[in-house]
């Protein structure tokens, strides 16, 4: 009898609110390495209502770190969000995992308000700023993950009470955005660097993102990361660092 319930072992963790988790609607932004792991972990953790937005197709270099992608997906250039949602739903047929083939920039604040938690699995600062501002305006918690080789980061933003991504940025972040979009007059070129990435760091960061989502869905926001967690896989360390709300932050200043 104990072994007939797929979530029986989760239910043994007293603070996990399995009904709350099942009823929480998640938006996952990005269906790459982090997106694969985050969706897998969400479904296995009991989240039943997930939308995954991404506009890209599978390429062969994704295959070293994306659990749902196969060689044939890359050969056929299948859309990432479609593949992840189809295969993730096989993990739990009672879950609803919906793909959205779109740029996240097409999602307005109203669309963000239709979700309870936003999980960022992105690879660039400009898209992060969009998700950050729209989650903030929609007053939805935003759990952002980032990796670079064996380094990783998770930031939990609970607007307007905690610092947002923009509060923790400095000129180096904006220089990266400028480098990505360089306008030479007639043309706007887009520079997309290939960043080092591997599965172990991806798994760790995605797991932490989903663990934070579990806390939020279980009414344990007070146990969430305060405010930024950095992970160093090479040295096997992780640390949480406090950040302050930036009084000049456009989000906090205009929409307190």
């Amino acid at each position, binding site marked *: 009898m104990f072994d007939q319930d797929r979530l029986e072992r989760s239910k043994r963790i007293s603070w996990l609110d399995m009904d709350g988790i099942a009823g929480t609607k998640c938006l996952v932004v990005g269906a790459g*390495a982090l997106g694969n792991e985050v969706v897998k972990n969400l479904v296995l953790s009991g989240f039943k209502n997930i939308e995954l937005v991404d506009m890209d197709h599978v390429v062969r270099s994704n295959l070293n770190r994306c659990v749902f992608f196969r060689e044939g997906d890359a050969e056929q250039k299948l859309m990432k969000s479609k593949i992840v949602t189809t295969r993730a739903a096989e993990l739990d047929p009672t879950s609803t995992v919906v793909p959205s083939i779109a740029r996240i920039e097409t999602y307005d604040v109203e669309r963000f308000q239709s979700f309870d938690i936003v999980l960022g*699995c992105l690879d660039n600062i400009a898209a992060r700023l969009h998700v950050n501002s729209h989650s903030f305006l929609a007053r939805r918690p935003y759990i952002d993950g980032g990796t*670079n080789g064996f*380094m990783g*980061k998770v930031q939990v933003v609970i607007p307007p009470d905690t610092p947002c991504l923009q509060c*923790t940025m*400095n000129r*180096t972040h904006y220089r990266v955005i400028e480098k990505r979009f360089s306008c030479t007059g007639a043309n706007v070129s887009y520079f997309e660097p290939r960043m080092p990435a591997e599965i172990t760091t991806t798994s760790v960061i995605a797991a932490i993102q989903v663990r934070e989502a579990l806390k939020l869905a279980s009414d344990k926001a007070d146990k969430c990361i305060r405010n930024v967690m950095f992970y160093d896989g090479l040295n096997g360390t992780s640390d949480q660092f406090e950040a302050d709300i*930036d009084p000049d932050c456009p989000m906090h200043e205009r929409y307190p």
Partner: protein
Amino acid sequence: MGVRVIIKNAETGANVAMDLEPTNSVQEIIDSIAMYWEKDAGAYVIRKGKKLLKGEQMIGDLGFAENDEIELIPDPEGGI
């Protein structure tokens, strides 16, 4: 009055001492040290103890003591 701080490179563990004036900003430290260590053109943050410092904060406002340690950390951008 100036103060000497030790800056640690989170990626390599390397250290370097830097003499700072109260009017120096955290952003100036990030820019100088990233150039000194010939860092890639990426995003970086600096921490002092458990606190992330803001770019526009001034050294004179941060209560540095001689040989205090701060750390330059890359802010990971990837995920796809």
